[in-house]
């Protein structure tokens, strides 16, 4: 399917700024109509073949630029339960990348070049959200130390305690990204998402962006979300133990029961830059604007700036010292 503008026939897109379908050609709003098409192989507007790959659910036709949404990849078992629509525009994402990396001298200049940045991809990433009811049972020994001085003797009293904790925590919406091509660590780093803004799915939100369906079923991603939940309950339990100099665990186990799973789409901007034969990815959270990723560093620039710093510093101090000696 795609959204066609009634006024000029252009391909409409979702505007994060205005929360409305927008026609970039005639600048009209809410003037579109849904044009359905079941055939996934060719573009309904120009007939060129569509490259959807195994997981693509939304993309732009390489030939005519129409934004397409593949119907059988957003329906039935592939219909997301929820979605957080893009809140940040492409321009805003580009701006935050420039602000974050612009001041760093070792990054090759073309990286923050406007033209390169405009190649940034806005994509709805498939996520599995899991709810867990977890319980941690902890037993250990805690030591408390008291020291005092009397005359010329120092005394040290060590007391031992048996520490028992049983903590129950319910976790809501623990995410695991279900797209293999998106780097898991970087996706973790652009969290958190604000799930208050999560809403029922509608294909309209996807117009103008790329999208993917979950690459594997929920079960295969449980490890990732479970690890996050376990880490969290570990910390919460630790926080309930205080006053000891040392705590030695004797037994510790976590029982986590998955009580809910949801398939949702979360907004991400991805900027890829190729340098020195390697791909560098920068991710921007499409809702909050948080940035994660590694920028390329140029050895040449690093050398130049380091030498310049030394050279200028040296000259500066040399003249300062010489002037001081002459006075």
């Amino acid at each position, binding site marked *: 399917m795609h959204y066609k503008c009634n006024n000029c026939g252009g391909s409409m897109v979702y505007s994060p700024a205005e929360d409305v379908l927008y026609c970039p050609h005639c600048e009209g709003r809410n003037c579109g109509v849904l044009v359905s098409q079941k055939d996934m192989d060719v573009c309904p507007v120009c007939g060129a073949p569509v490259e959807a790959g195994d997981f693509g659910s939304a993309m732009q036709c390489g030939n005519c630029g129409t934004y397409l949404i593949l119907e059988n990849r957003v329906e039935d078992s592939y219909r997301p339960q929820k979605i957080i629509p893009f809140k940040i525009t492409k321009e805003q994402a580009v701006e935050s990348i420039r602000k974050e990396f612009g*001041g*760093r*001298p*070792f990054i090759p200049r073309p990286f923050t070049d406007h033209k390169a940045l405009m190649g940034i991809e806005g994509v709805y990433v498939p996520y599995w959200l899991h*709810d867990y009811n977890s*319980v941690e049972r902890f037993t250990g020994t805690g030591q408390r130390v008291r020291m005092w001085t009397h005359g*010329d*003797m120092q*005394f*040290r*009293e*060590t*007391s*031992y*305690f*048996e520490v*028992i*904790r*049983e903590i*129950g*925590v*319910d*976790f*809501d*919406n*623990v995410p695991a990204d279900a797209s293999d091509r998106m780097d898991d*660590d970087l996706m*973790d*780093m*652009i*969290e*958190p998402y604000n799930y208050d803004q999560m809403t029922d799915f509608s294909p309209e939100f996807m117009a103008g962006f790329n999208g993917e369906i979950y690459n594997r079923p929920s079960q295969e991603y449980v490890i990732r979300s479970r690890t996050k*939940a376990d*880490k*969290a*309950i570990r*910390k*919460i339990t630790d926080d309930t133990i205080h006053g000891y100099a040392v705590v030695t665990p004797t037994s510790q186990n976590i029982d986590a029961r998955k009580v809910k799973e949801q398939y949702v789409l979360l907004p991400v901007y991805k900027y890829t830059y190729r340098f020195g034969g390697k791909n560098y990815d920068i991710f921007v959270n499409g809702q909050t604007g*948080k940035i*994660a*990723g*590694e920028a390329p*560093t140029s050895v040449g620039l*690093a050398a130049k*700036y*380091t030498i310049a*710093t*030394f050279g*200028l*510093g*040296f000259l*500066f*101090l*040399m*003249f300062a*010292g*010489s*002037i001081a*000696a*002459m006075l």
Partner: protein
Amino acid sequence: MNYRKLLTALAVLTLILLIVWLALTISTGRLNFSDEAEEPDAGRTNTQCTTEERVFDYADVLSDQEEEDLRELIAKHEQKTKCDIVLVTLNESLQNYQPAGSYYVPMETPENWIRAYADDFWDTHYFGYNTGLEGDGVLLADDWYREPYDGKMHTWLSTSGSAYARLGDYEIDRILDEVYEDIETDPFRAYSSYVTYFSKIMTSGSVSSGPVIVIDWYTVLFPLILALAVFAYFWRSRKGRITVDENTYINRTAEGRGIQVLQSHDRFLHKHVTRQRIVRSEGGGGGGGFGGGHISSGGMSHGGGGHSR
């Protein structure tokens, strides 16, 4: 923070320093930039000087022949530098020395005492090539007496007029270093180098009295540390900070239960006490230094600097 702009600012500052340095170097005549038209030599015009003598060996560290040789050497260089060059050696404590004039001068330390002595010697004899009041010239006072106050022998180089203008701390230190090279083994040689070195500096003819360039350990070390720090700071690729803490996923809605403490016990088991005798200890340290540009007890402007051994 834009590092490129920071570097540019540093470059501008360094350029300013370069200009200041150049101005100072040229204005104090350290650079033979253009052969300055020499004023026709009017000869020695001081009419107030009370003596023709220049070598006052009260400490008797020089033989008569050496004194004679020094007088000749001094006469030759006085013509070259257009400055009076005076040498005074003494062998007595200056702790109770009373300044000759009525202007206040500090008299706290041995450096103060010998400074007052040297300046007064110059003032009271009205030394100076061109005039007897703040005239051009230099006086070296070397006391061979070990001051009980600090156990050291003190030396002072007093400058006046053109020598005051021309000799900064740097040059004075160089002259005194030259003197101290030989002072213990061959005082005649040490005092001779005082005369010749002073002359070299005043006539600005050679490399060592040329433009002042100071390069010390800090000139290399600090920029090195800075450059390495800058390199380390910008090289590490910042991957984006993780701000998800454990509470982000907790269900706090009405149906959920949030955090529940189901069980919590801290049960005392046993304790033991150890003891140790305390050992005490302690430590210590020290250091010092100074510079020139002052008024003598006679109210005259002098420069100068001192060393001790």
